[in-house]
């Protein structure tokens, strides 16, 4: 892999117009990655999902070079109907389209940040890989007091022409004072066996509101990793919803720093898995100052030999008095081969806090099924009704009604 990495790296650098300094930084990151390799189960954070093994077993040899010199045709059929929205389209990791057609042009700034590499707190070897290979990096700045009229949908498409590729993406968002953004990440892939490595960085200034919905719905055989870093200032609110369902493997990491007083973070997630899929959500909520709040709800429905992992951590700094932190994970195992692992963690250094977590896993309640069947439903209907209700709970947490309906339709949840 080492030779391949070096060769692909050199090819990649050739196509970019980079200063000597930036090349140095990218090289440094590459060396870091070569030294550490893909994370494996020996690392505590990857204890339940050995990415190194997963890549070896499902992809084999990866290549890291992507030819981004020519444009890809944007397939408009994947666009969401019935919801007016702004678009960013990534195809095979290349930005093909940025379109804020519904917004005031002077209120949104798109800054090319390709040369500046931002460091992530809690970084792992994948952030090094990302730093070394990302081609273009844009920063989307929502200006002071501007609230986007329509949601922004980012389409992540991988078309059928590529396989065994590593694709690296990076986007930065800055939401200035009193601004707001609704962001949907939509994954649609027709290709197989690629490894997608996405890093987002969000900076929320005072009173800013971010709503991020990540939807991985369509069946595919790709391996995905996504890392969201969210820094929050005073009174800001972040809401993250994750639907984890379609990919072979998907690990979503949310690292949220509540730096300002009265800031709050909400993370809600659904795992709906079948076959031998293996998904993970890992959250780290850092309560760094007083009067901050976080709430997490993760529900899983696991069929066949699928496996879901939830690792959630609430960290409370010694200054962060009056913190309110809550975490709940629930799983229904529908098959004897399915597996649910959880590590809900609390690390608390302040005394005047209210922190709790709960985790439960088990089978569908037979009594409930009996109840429904005695009222005339057949077994299949009762089962579906119960699962429907179980998941609806999480979807109802979505605060945007338009997007709530969109997502409900996507998963086929009825009210």
């Amino acid at each position, binding site marked *: 892999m080492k030779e391949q990495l070096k060769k692909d790296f050199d090819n990649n650098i050739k196509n970019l117009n980079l200063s000597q300094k930036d090349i140095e930084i990218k090289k440094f990151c590459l060396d870091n990655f070569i030294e550490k390799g893909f994370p494996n189960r020996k690392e505590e954070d990857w204890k339940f999902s050995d990415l190194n093994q997963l890549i070896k077993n499902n992809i084999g040899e990866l290549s890291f070079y992507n030819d981004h010199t020519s444009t890809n045709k944007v397939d408009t059929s994947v666009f969401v109907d019935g919801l007016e929205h702004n678009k960013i389209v990534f195809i095979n990791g290349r930005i093909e389209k940025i379109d804020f057609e519904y917004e005031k042009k002077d209120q949104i700034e798109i800054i090319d940040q390709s040369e500046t590499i931002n460091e992530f707190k809690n970084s792992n070897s994948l952030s090094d890989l990302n730093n070394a290979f990302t081609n273009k990096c844009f920063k989307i700045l929502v200006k002071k007091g501007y609230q986007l009229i329509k949601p922004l949908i980012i389409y992540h498409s991988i078309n059928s022409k590529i396989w065994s590729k590593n694709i690296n993406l990076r986007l930065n968002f800055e939401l200035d004072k009193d601004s707001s953004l609704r962001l949907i990440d939509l994954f649609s892939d027709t290709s197989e066996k690629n490894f997608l490595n996405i890093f987002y960085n969000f900076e929320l200034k005072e009173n800013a509101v971010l709503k991020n919905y990540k939807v991985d719905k369509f069946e595919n055989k790709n391996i995905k990793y996504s890392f969201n870093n969210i820094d929050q200032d005073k009174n800001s609110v972040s809401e993250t919803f994750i639907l984890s369902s379609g990919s072979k493997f998907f690990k979503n990491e949310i690292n949220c720093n509540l730096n300002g007083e009265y800031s709050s973070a909400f993370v809600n997630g659904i795992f709906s898995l079948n076959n031998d899929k293996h998904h993970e959500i890992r959250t780290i909520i850092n309560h760094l100052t007083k009067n901050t709040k976080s709430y997490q709800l993760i529900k899983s429905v696991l069929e066949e030999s699928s496996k879901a992992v939830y690792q959630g951590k609430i960290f409370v700094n010694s200054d962060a008095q009056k913190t309110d932190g809550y975490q709940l994970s629930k799983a229904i195992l529908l098959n004897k*081969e399915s597996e649910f692992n*959880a590590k*809900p963690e609390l*690390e608390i250094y*302040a005394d005047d*806090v209210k*922190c*709790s977590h709960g985790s439960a*896993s*088990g089978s569908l309640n037979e009594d409930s099924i009996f109840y429904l069947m005695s009222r005339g439903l057949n077994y299949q209907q009762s089962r579906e009704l119960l699962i429907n209700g179980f998941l609806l709970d999480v979807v109802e947490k979505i605060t945007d009604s338009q997007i709530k309906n969109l997502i409900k339709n996507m998963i086929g949840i009825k009210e």
Partner: protein
Amino acid sequence: MNNRQKEIDNLKDYKYGFSTDIENIQAPKGLNEDVIKFISNIKNEPAWMLEFRLKAFDRFKVLKEPDWQKPKFPKIDYQDLYYYSAPKSMKDKPKSLDELDPKLLETYKKLGIPLQEQARLNGIAVDAVFDSVSVATTFKDELTKQGIIFCPISEAIQNHPQLVKKYLGSVIPTSDHFFATLNSAVFTDGSFVYIPEGIRCPMELSTYFRINASNTGQFERTLIIADKGSYVSYLEGCTAPMRDENQLHAANVELVALDDAEIKYSTVQNWYPGDKDGKGGIYNFVTKRGLCKGKNSKISWTQVETGSAITWKYPSCILKGDNSVGEFYSIAITNNHQKADTGTKMIHLGKNTKSKIISKGISAGSSDMTYRGLVDISSKAKNSNNYTQCDSLLMGNKCGAHTVPYIKNKNSESNIAHEATTSKISEEQLHYCQQRGLNPEEAVGLIVNGFCKEVLQQLPMEFAVEAQKLVGISLEGSVG
């Protein structure tokens, strides 16, 4: 001044902090094959026992000290320790208590452990371990009548080799982790209990551990076997003198419960916790593991951890037999600069197995407390259940409380439920108590005892009273 206040004042300092001036036989300093042979030799052990030790030592040589735990500590120099220390008077074993060194008797009297006949009215059989050897075992005769074996493990190696050979290392093998392997290589003494088929042990069995010599590590090994349909309740208590250096305590405890048997193991751990600035104290790195080998067997751990500079232990249950039950009740209190990383492991292998974990952590001062636990339901453990509840109470803003549970469910017919909360004593509760005439310290004592009640209830009567007092004393000075 009321009585309770007086009592607390008496106990304010670590009252077990004295040391006994007694002549010792020690093994040469350091850890090597010769020292292991020395220990084996002085105990007159058979060849298979020495082989067991050397096998463990071979394995130990390739192991590295683990470092994933929350409380970090300075590197221990394993060559700078004495691995064997025994009172000289124990060389020719005294045949009865009358021949026992009066200084030893005096020590145990001061500790409140009655070894002499006249004091044995409270109906607990005691095995007293002083540094590396067991000095006295009481009530032996009465237990023998029922066929119960309760003796120092070194005696069991001589007198009941078949039993020891069969079960020693069957739960904690010589190939286990760093500290367990170290113990297997150099363990000196400890208790051995065998309850024969169908016998309900008529009294509580108890071991009292005392570290006296300085620069000594204590490595005791306890093996309890409950044969089919038997029951035993076992208590363990520990203290050590106040010294400026840190002392290592790495014990192994193995429990085996056969069909329908039940073992109840209670610990009140009160090793010297170090002074107010965190100087000195015991490193308590203990491996405790119980195997529910037979059907319908049950193992229950209850622990009250108030002492030690660092506590690092996870009493575990391997639920192998169908319908077996594992329980874990724990109170861990840390104050000043104490650190604790404790919890349990419940490994469900058999069908219809059940486990329950109740953990209460209280941290005060500048201390740090971690609950770390594993619940693992394997794919064969059909219809198994686990319930976990871990609550933490914080006093002051310099301490920390952490919860790190690992939950693995590989069986769709099994259920796991986990709950954890972290909070402080509410102003309302304190106000209510004070309004009714309690001073702030008493109020905290009352609330904390209520918080711990679920666990305290599990302790045998005699221990419960002591533990309740201990809870109050450990938190002394943390209010205000």
